């Protein structure tokens, strides 16, 4: 009788196993494909490390893992995330808390589903050579201000220190400041500040005023959805928030990989991409998203920050009343 070599038996067994695994995987993929929910997110701006968490989650399949087939709408100067959300052109949107409160006051029924950026990154920068050392020194000086909600924190700052400045509308560049056209410029810590440094101005030549350190902490990027969206599919909102937070954690744990991903999306969008700038931005996002002494918890809006922000808006007559915190914030686990 001829013996069948053991190796051949194993070979056959292996083939069978492999076939089984392929079949199972296909079935799983098919099943997963079936249950994926389509959703869209609009960030505040075109791709950059400010949104590294979402792009990383998208690229690493984290949304997919949470059964979401997400599309990120590439934002930019011509895309308003608030408008997209209000008009239902996006399921989820990144908004500043100030914008969200304004939108709600204007009748848009939106809810905060996660507060990503805990601190305000807005700062005012002056050249030391201009002689500005204290907020009071800004009195009567030319200060560059962005329009819209970006101007709210600086305005609160001027009010707090009782100063009147000569406001100059500020573009998306810092060139006016660099050329000496204005004495003080508005800047995001994670963005324009570094642009100034990388234009050859040394940090020790600058005097900076962090608004978050002046009792004017107006939390910035938060994830918002319309009330009806979360009511229709609370699971989707919950999974979306979980995946987004997971994406940020992954990005912070693997900064180089996250930078590769964000650079890839930037190039695809034909946006000037500077890795060192994005690296700076990602590092600062970590400081803003996971600040020391954050009591509310990762991804949560602190009640005190909410009240401070709403109070400032009320005082500046941007809104007429402060909506209740619990109706403004939607938490799937709270219901």
């Amino acid at each position: 009788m001829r013996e069948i070599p053991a190796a051949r038996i194993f070979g056959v067994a292996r083939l069978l196993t492999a076939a089984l695994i392929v079949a199972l995987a296909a079935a799983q993929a098919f099943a997963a494909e079936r249950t994926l929910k389509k959703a869209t997110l609009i960030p505040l701006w075109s791709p950059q490390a400010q949104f590294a968490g979402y792009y990383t989650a998208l690229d690493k399949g984290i949304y997919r893992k949470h059964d979401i087939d997400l599309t990120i709408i590439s934002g930019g100067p011509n895309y308003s995330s608030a408008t997209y959300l209000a008009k239902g052109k996006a399921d989820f949107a990144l908004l500043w808390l100030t914008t969200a409160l304004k939108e709600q006051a204007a009748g848009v029924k939106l809810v905060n589903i996660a507060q990503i950026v805990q601190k305000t990154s807005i700062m005012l920068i002056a050249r030391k050579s201009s002689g500005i050392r204290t907020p009071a020194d800004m009195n009567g000086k030319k200060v560059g201000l962005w329009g819209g909600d970006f101007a709210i924190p600086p305005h609160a700052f001027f009010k707090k220190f009782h100063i009147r400045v000569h406001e100059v509308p500020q573009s998306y560049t810092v060139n006016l400041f660099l050329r000496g056209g204005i004495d003080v410029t508005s800047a995001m810590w994670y963005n324009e500040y570094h642009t100034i440094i990388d234009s050859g101005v040394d940090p020790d030549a600058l005097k900076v005023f962090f608004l978050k350190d002046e009792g004017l902490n107006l939390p910035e990027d938060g994830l918002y959805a319309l009330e009806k969206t979360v009511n229709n599919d609370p699971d989707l909102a919950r999974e979306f928030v979980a995946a987004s937070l997971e994406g940020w954690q992954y990005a912070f744990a693997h900064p180089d990989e996250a930078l590769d991903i964000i650079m890839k999306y930037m190039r695809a969008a034909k946006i000037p991409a500077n890795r060192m700038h994005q690296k700076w931005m990602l590092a600062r996002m970590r400081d803003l998203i996971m600040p020391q002494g954050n009591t509310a918890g990762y991804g949560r809006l602190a009640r005190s920050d909410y009240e401070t922000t709403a109070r400032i808006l009320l005082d500046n007559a941007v809104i007429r009343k402060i909506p209740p915190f619990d109706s403004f914030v939607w938490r799937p686990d709270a219901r």
Partner: protein
Amino acid sequence: MLADRSIAFKLIFVITLSGTLIFAAVLGYNYYRSRLMLQQELENNARNLALASVYRVDTVLTSVAKVTEGVARSLESGGYTHRQLLSLLRATVRDNREIYGCCAAFEPLTPHARPYGPYFYKQGKTLVYDPEDTFQYLRQDWYQISRELGMAEWTEPYYGDNGANILMATCSVPFYETTNGTRRLKGVVASDVSLEWLTELVASIKVLKTGYAFLLSRNGTIVTHPAKDMIMNETIFSLAEARNDPGLRALGRKMIRGGTDFIPYTDITGRACWLYYAPIPSVGWTLAVVFPEAELLAQVKRLSLTGAAMGMAGILLLTVAVVFIARSITTPLYGLAQATASIAGGDFEVDLPPVRSRDEVGALTTAFQVMKGSLKEYIARLTETTAAKERIESELNIAHDIQMGLLPKNFPPFPERREFDLYALMAPAREVGGDFYDFFLVDDTHLCFVIADVSGKGVPAALFMAMSMTLIKATARQGIAPDEILCRVNGELARDNDSCMFVTTFCGLLDTETGELVYANGGHNPPLHMKRSGGISWLPTSGGVVVGAMEGITYRRERLLLEPDDSLFLYTDGVTEAMDLRDQAFSEERLERTLALLCGSGIRETVTGVMAEVGRFAEGAPQSDDITMMMVLYRG
């Protein structure tokens, strides 16, 4: 280490090493100087190249600025209609090749003013009218910077959004109106310039093979660069940050401040380069030209390599020459060494290497040849001499045997005679000696004994000794007294004694019955009389003349009565004049002391005891004279 090596090796090693070192030093210095010279020339070239390019760029940009300025000034004069403004702008765009588009944007003077900013730009061969219809322009760099600074300014380069991604820059000039003495901003005239021609111009700057130029904006942004990725994405400061290179940041700051310099620089690929930079005055941008050092030095390097190759070949040639010279020296030397070894082994027939040159080696070979001949001759002579010597030695040995045979050597000589005994010993200093002793019975009651020492040594002495001994023996047998014996022998010897040899002789005749000793001394050492009682005394002798020296000598007959058991100790001067290593003689006193110590021993023991004492005294010093001793005992 080097000391153990061959001359050839030393020569090659030292000369090649020295040659290489000298050559390397010359080559190194040459490389260094050439490099320095090239650097200077390069700096000149770099300056010329960069300044020429700067001039070309500046001319174009200055002309644009002037045209824009002209439009602004003409708008300041006022009194133009909308139509006239449009035709002015249109003409400006149309008539100036470098201007891509031109806009006159007006400042809103009242809160309800409408945006007003007519704008023309080129699209292919046609002009497009595209007026600003929002106040967006109020917060744009080109408007704001001029407005806030109140003067003509160029924007940072940017990608124009009209159509394709074209790198543009805008020159803007504010214009004013003066009413009632107050000067107010009316608006800003802006001319857009496509920077494509500039990019091409900078890209066309080729330095050597891979050298290149790049352009920095006022913010340090890279406007043109062979690495396309970096254009408008990187600033020199972000590069410095990425490379963690504060030096590059400092360099960037100098560059954007309008400096000019020629410095070493490491480019993005990490190559060592030289960098020349100069500002473009009209826009405040910086043109930098990068010269790759490796290429720059390629020629010097090639020259140095050729030089090195030539040097290597030269050193190789030198080595070959040294090897040749070394061999021409060492080969004959080696041959000589081999031949010498053969000669040392005794082979004088070996051929020496032929003399090929008249140099030191030749001289040495010739000297060796002479030495070989001399040695050969010498050895031949030596062999001959040695053979002769051996023959003489063998003859001497025979002579020795004969001489020893002459001396009676059987002791005791007369065993049957109880009344006396006798013992004698002779140790010649050479094969044959001049001493002798003899004894014989003249008749039944008379014993004659003789001890003598011939003048000189060796064969003549031995022959004279044999003659003397025979004469004495023959004469003594006639039964005459010792003095008479000496007298006659003297007569015989002295006659025809041309060699003037002589012999000291002591001759005694003992009456064996009475103990009476009759003796005569012919110049010999007096014997010692050893009494039975233990006393030792020198035998009184008249000290006669030596025998054989001259004719007609008479000797005194002397007498002594020996008591029973008295003995006589006779010796030659070989005993008392035996020398030790310090050239001190054994002496009569020491002999007397030695005999006193040996008193009571038998005659044989006494004689051999003295002999042993003399040997001990000499401490191995060679025996210089024959030693002879004889002892006669009278028992009664």
